[in-house]
Structure formats: structure tokens, C-alpha cells
């Protein structure tokens, strides 16, 4: 049994404990809470600070690598990685960021209709993504480009829907990475149902559902908490709290820290420094392990920041201050790992130079792939509407084909003159 899973179990049995960061609002000391506070419950599940607390000063935030790049220990969650693994995580984050930057550029050049940037959330996505086993199943939002990278989903696959050549378009089962889900929070239920199926099959795979702080307000997320708890489904809810749901700050979604929501459903919740790839990896591993061993769901709130706009159509200057972004820049997930690796001599200049070349090659490959994507055949509108076919679709397809064919013998409009 790992340290992590033991911790997770403990907190599950003692979720009612209260440990205030400030004395401003004294907790009501009910007997139940007193009893729970005496237990050895993980403190992480008992924190009541407002959601915008700076993460590095937050005693309840699981952190293994400080923004300054110093390795620190956490009493419940630990990790021991080889230099190779550390370089691998660094590479993943750099590649994810480079891919994302290329997509933003492609949108600006008119090659994509829209792009939701992951900038700033690389650690949350790579840390959680690298915690997964091949047989685990991922239910992403539309921003999980880093997780997709970890799964080996070809990056250009993700761009089809944003270019407008398909509405998803990949086979979820080839990488156990479900289609991007745009309607907020819906996929949490799909993940829960899938996890119920895993449990029925007697498999020890786990399922992870990604969503954001905004989605935490959706009924589907609440219902997925209920169903997963009732059926003890092996699902990890990975909430990237990036502080902003387009223009609405987390305070417009919740009056308690999001990870505490789990307590009311009967499973543990943990807040992790979402810009610390080591902590995200350690906590997600523990949560997945817990799910695998039949202990049910867990909520991980990765406390991070959306450095860019919500999407390329958004203008964050309308609703947030530059200083806020600047403060988070100092907590950059990639820089802190680089500082640590350099100070520990885990990577040398040659490593970083080679990676620079590799990431630029990725950028070129993605650019080429997008530009060479062809528009779908108009007749494909009628494809895959039904698995078993439909007389109605057949009829309309034939009508459309006849209409198209009616142009065949007449000269094209431009040739008339």
C-alpha cells in the first residue's frame, strides 16, 4: 500500500474536520467536528481559505516544488523520480506549450476558427496525464491539449474541430482519450458511467474526468459526484481551477474552496498546486490508485491560472488586471522545474538546446498538418448520423446530391461572361 493511498483512505473516513487558516470566522465546534479534528486526517481536505489565496503561502496546498524551484516534502504525498522522468516531464510541458502557441498563431493567421489556449496549465495537465496508465480512460474538456499529448493523440487531431473540418473526429478508443466536450461539465457524467462499467467488468483501470472551476457549478458535475459516490465508481475528478470562467472569477462559482465540495458527497478532495508538475503527478497517482483499489472517487482541485484568454475570441483586459497575471507568471510551471533541474544538474545546456529544436520541429509539423487539412466533402454531412442508417437521411442525401448534380452541365458562374 502506498503512502498516498493510505492518506486518501484516512481522509475519506474523517472528511468533516475543520482547520481554519484564519481566525476571522471561528468554526462552529460541533462534537462531530471536534472528533474528526482529533483524527489523523489529511489536512488538505480540511482547508477553508478563500479560493484566491496565493498558493505558495497556503499551508493546505499540496506542493512538492516551490515557484522558486525548490523541492519540498509533503507529509501525505511524496514522489521520487529519476532524472530521466524529470526531463520527460519538462519536455512534455515544453512541447505542450509550443503546440499551444502554434495553434494560437494558426488562429491569428485564419487557419483555425478558434483556439482555447492551455497556457499556464501545463503542469496540471502533464502531471495528471503522466499519472495515467494506458488502460485508464480520459474524459477531457476542450482544453486538455497537454493530456492529449501524454496519451499520444496526434496533436493535429485536436485541431480539426477548431479548423472546422470535423466535430471531434478521432476514435476515442485508440488512445482511451474521449472526444473534446464543449458543453460544460457533461463529460463528468460520461466518465462516471464509464467508470461504473469498468467496475462491472471487474477491471482495475481508472477513469479521469477533467473540468474547470466554471463547470463545478453545473448540475451534471454535481450529479456525477452523486452517482460516482453511490456506486463507488473508480473515477478521479480533476478540476483545473484556473481562476476564471471566461470573465467570471471563481468567487462567482463558489463560496467554499472547490475541493471541499467532495466532502459533502462522501469522498475526499485535495487541493494541489496546479503549477507544480510533481505535486500534480503525485496527487493524481494517489487518487488513481485509490480508484483502482475499489475505494471510489476523489476530487483533485489543481489550483492554477489561465495565463491566456479563455479562447482566441476573448479579451481578458475587459475583466482582469495585468498585475494578477504578472503575479502568476512568477509561478510558471515550466520555469520552476527548469530552475530545479539546473540547480540539481539534472539537465545541461545540450538538453535544453536539443529540446528547443524538437519543439520548433513540432511547431512546423503542426503548421504543415493544419494547412494541408482539406475541407470535408459536402456529402459527408449525411455520414454517420445513424449507425444503423436512416431512410430520412437517405432521402435528404439523395435530394442534396440531385441538387448538386443540377449544376454539373451548366457553366460555372465565373465563366458566363
Amino acid at each position, binding site marked *: 500500500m502506498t503512502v498516498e493511498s493510505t492518506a486518501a483512505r484516512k481522509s475519506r473516513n474523517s472528511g468533516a474536520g475543520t482547520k481554519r487558516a484564519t481566525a476571522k470566522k471561528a468554526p462552529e465546534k460541533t462534537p462531530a467536528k471536534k472528533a474528526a479534528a482529533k483524527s489523523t486526517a489529511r489536512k488538505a481536505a480540511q482547508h477553508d481559505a478563500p479560493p484566491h489565496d496565493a498558493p505558495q503561502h497556503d499551508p493546505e496546498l499540496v506542493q512538492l516544488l516551490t515557484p522558486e524551484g525548490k523541492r519540498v516534502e509533503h507529509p501525505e504525498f511524496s514522489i521520487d523520480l529519476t532524472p530521466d522522468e524529470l526531463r520527460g516531464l519538462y519536455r512534455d510541458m515544453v512541447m505542450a506549450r509550443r503546440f499551444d502557441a502554434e495553434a494560437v498563431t494558426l488562429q491569428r493567421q485564419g487557419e483555425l476558427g478558434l483556439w482555447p489556449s492551455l497556457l499556464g496549465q501545463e503542469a496540471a495537465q502533464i502531471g495528471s496525464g503522466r499519472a495515467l496508465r494506458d488502460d485508464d480512460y480520459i474524459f477531457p474538456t476542450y482544453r486538455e491539449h497537454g493530456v492529449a499529448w501524454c496519451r499520444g493523440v496526434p496533436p493535429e487531431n485536436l485541431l480539426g474541430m477548431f479548423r472546422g473540418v470535423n466535430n471531434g473526429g*478521432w*476514435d476515442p478508443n485508440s488512445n482511451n482519450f474521449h*472526444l473534446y466536450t464543449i458543453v460544460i461539465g457533461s463529460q463528468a457524467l460520461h466518465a462516471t*458511467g464509464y467508470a461504473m462499467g469498468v467496475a462491472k467488468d471487474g477491471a482495475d483501470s481508472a477513469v479521469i474526468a477533467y473540468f474547470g472551476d466554471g463547470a463545478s457549478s453545473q448540475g451534471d458535475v454535481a450529479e456525477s459526484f452523486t*452517482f460516482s459516490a453511490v456506486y463507488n465508481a473508480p473515477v478521479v475528478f480533476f478540476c483545473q481551477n484556473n481562476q476564471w470562467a471566461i470573465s467570471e472569477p471563481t468567487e462567482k462559482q463558489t463560496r467554499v474552496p472547490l475541493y471541499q465540495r467532495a466532502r459533502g458527497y462522501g469522498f475526499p478532495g485535495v487541493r494541489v498546486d496546479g503549477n507544480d508538475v510533481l505535486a500534480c503527478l503525485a496527487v493524481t497517482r494517489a487518487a488513481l490508485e485509490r480508484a483502482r483499489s475499489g475505494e471510489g472517487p476523489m476530487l483533485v482541485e489543481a489550483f492554477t491560472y489561465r495565463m491566456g484568454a479563455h479562447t482566441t475570441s476573448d479579451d481578458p483586459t475587459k475583466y482582469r488586471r495585468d498585475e494578477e497575471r504578472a503575479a502568476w507568471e512568477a509561478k510558471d510551471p515550466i520555469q520552476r522545474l527548469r530552475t530545479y533541474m539546473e540547480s540539481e544538474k539534472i539537465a545541461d545546456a545540450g538538453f535544453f538546446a536539443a529540446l528547443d529544436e524538437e519543439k520548433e520541429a513540432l511547431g512546423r509539423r503542426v503548421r504543415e498538418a493544419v494547412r494541408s487539412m482539406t475541407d470535408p466533402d459536402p456529402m459527408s454531412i449525411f455520414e454517420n*448520423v445513424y*449507425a444503423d442508417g436512416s431512410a430520412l*437521411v437517405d432521402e435528404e442525401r439523395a435530394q442534396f446530391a440531385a441538387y448538386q448534380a443540377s449544376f454539373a452541365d451548366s457553366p460555372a458562374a465565373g465563366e458566363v461572361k
Partner: protein
Amino acid sequence: MAAQKLPIAKAINESLRKALETDPKVLVMGEDVGKLGGVFRVTDGLQKDFGEDRVIDTPLAESGIVGTAIGLALRGYRPVVEIQFDGFVFPAYDQIVTQLAKMHARALGKVKMPVVIRIPYGGGIGAVEHHSESPEALFAHVAGLKVISPSTSADAYWMMQQAIQSDDPVIFFEPKRRYWDKGEVDTDAIPGPLHAARTVRPGSDLTLVAYGPMVKVCLEAAAAAQEEGKSVEVIDLRSMSPIDFDTVQSSVERTGRLVVVHEAPVFYGSGAEIAARITERCFYHLEAPVLRVGGYHSPYPPARVEEEYLPGLDRVLDAVDRSLAY
């Protein structure tokens, strides 16, 4: 089992039982479907025989029921979910329309969604509000969904078998006021196509098209009309999406007159679609405009006046008379 006389509710029960027996991936899910056997007892005894893992009492959350069924289908299961009453489906509407209906197309055919959603629907049972509605058009309007409703015990049994075997999501509307009507079910029969309409009474002067609970009303109307010397053909549509327009067309080409009957409001109802398509297909055969009989553009009324709102024998005959008067 072969042929026997069963009420519609029991025919569905037998069909679910058969599916649970033959395919280990079939699951039955819903509120109160387990110990209670559903509020209409359609799933009576299934949990006792197949266990809580396959006949699943769910939390009271319709979106959760359909959303988790989608996840189970992705995992290879074939869930049959029950929405307890027609008026309770709307919390699940987003999952049905946005997720379930579109998943196959979004994955370019790589994913199938064999989910059946059973909905007892329609009025005439003196229920409180939200228990008597007919929302089929709201689902038929959505590409990716198949929408069907049986009117007999044999169809209830076989259409459920076919719905469960379908790799597409099927909204299965059960005519709740006919649950206890008995009919012959031959479980050894070879069923016809799921989406084919059926002529249930031949006639030559006018065509009545109906489905679900209204088929019985239309048959009674046709019998009454016969006494007055009018020969009325009755077609049980069976499937509201897709619609077997060919069968309706060939009937109207003979009779020249069409009246569509459903409990759902006439405005934007399936009768509107049938009228438009048949007018297009049979323009030169029509002796009268296509008429519709159905509910009004009002909330479903309180039970004490629902008989005025629902198409009954007299309202159908009134439409028949109006059509023949042209």
C-alpha cells in the same frame, strides 16, 4: 413461450427479461426500477432475477441517468434507461440532444450509442401535472435519435427487442394509458422492420394516421364511420423518426384524404411534418387539405378537463367529416 395474451406493460417486461437473459451487456436503469419494479411495474421482478448490478436503481437525477448511460455505452454496455414520466425527461434533455444524439457523428462513426430511453407518455389517466405529456416531437426533431412508440402488446415486445439491438439511441415512448390493454404476443414470430408503418384497418375513403395511444381511438373512429358508410383506413405509424412516408403515401394516393391524430400539441407536432411531406408527395391525389387532430397550444390541462384536450372519438370523427366535406 410462443404465443400468449399479454398486457403491453407485461410485454415490455418480457422483452426486457429476454434481453437481459441473452445479452450480458444489457442493463436496466432508472428511478424505482428495482425492488418496486417501476411505478408502472414494467420492470417488475427483473432486479430479483438479474441482480442490482444489472437492474439498477439510480439516484433521482435524470441527466445523471442518461449521462452515465452514455458512459456505460462507451464502455460497451447497452443500457435501457427509464424516465419515470414524460414530464420528467427535461433535466436529461441536454444529455440526450447534445451528447447522446451526436456522439456517433462526432466520432466519425467510431463510437456507437446503443442506449434505449423508455418514457411512459401521454394522458388520459387522471394524473397531476407533468405526468401526461407527449413530447415526442422534441426528440424527433433531433438528428441521431430514433423515436418510436408501440400501440400493441406484440409491438411492445418486438419493438423493444429491436430497439435494444439497435446501435443508435432510441427514444421508446410507451403509451401509459394502454399499459393494461391485452394483446397476442408471439415470441417466436419474425418481426417486421422497426421503422415501418402498418395498416391496421383497410379503407378507401380516407386515411387516418396515428401512433401509440391514439391508434385505438382511430380504430374506434373508423368503426363508427363504417356504420355511416364511410370507409376509413387506419395506419399505425409506429415510428416517429424516421417516418415511413411510403406507406402513408400509397394509402393517400388511394383515399385522397388524410387526417393525422396525436395527443401532442398540433403546433409543430409530428402531424405538421406528415402533412407537409404528404402534400408534397401526393399533391395531385389530395381531395382535401391534410387535417390534424391533437392537443392545443396550452400547458397540459388539469385532469378534470383533459378529455376535452385529448383527441377522442368525436373529435376524430369531426375531422373525418370535415375532410370528406371538401
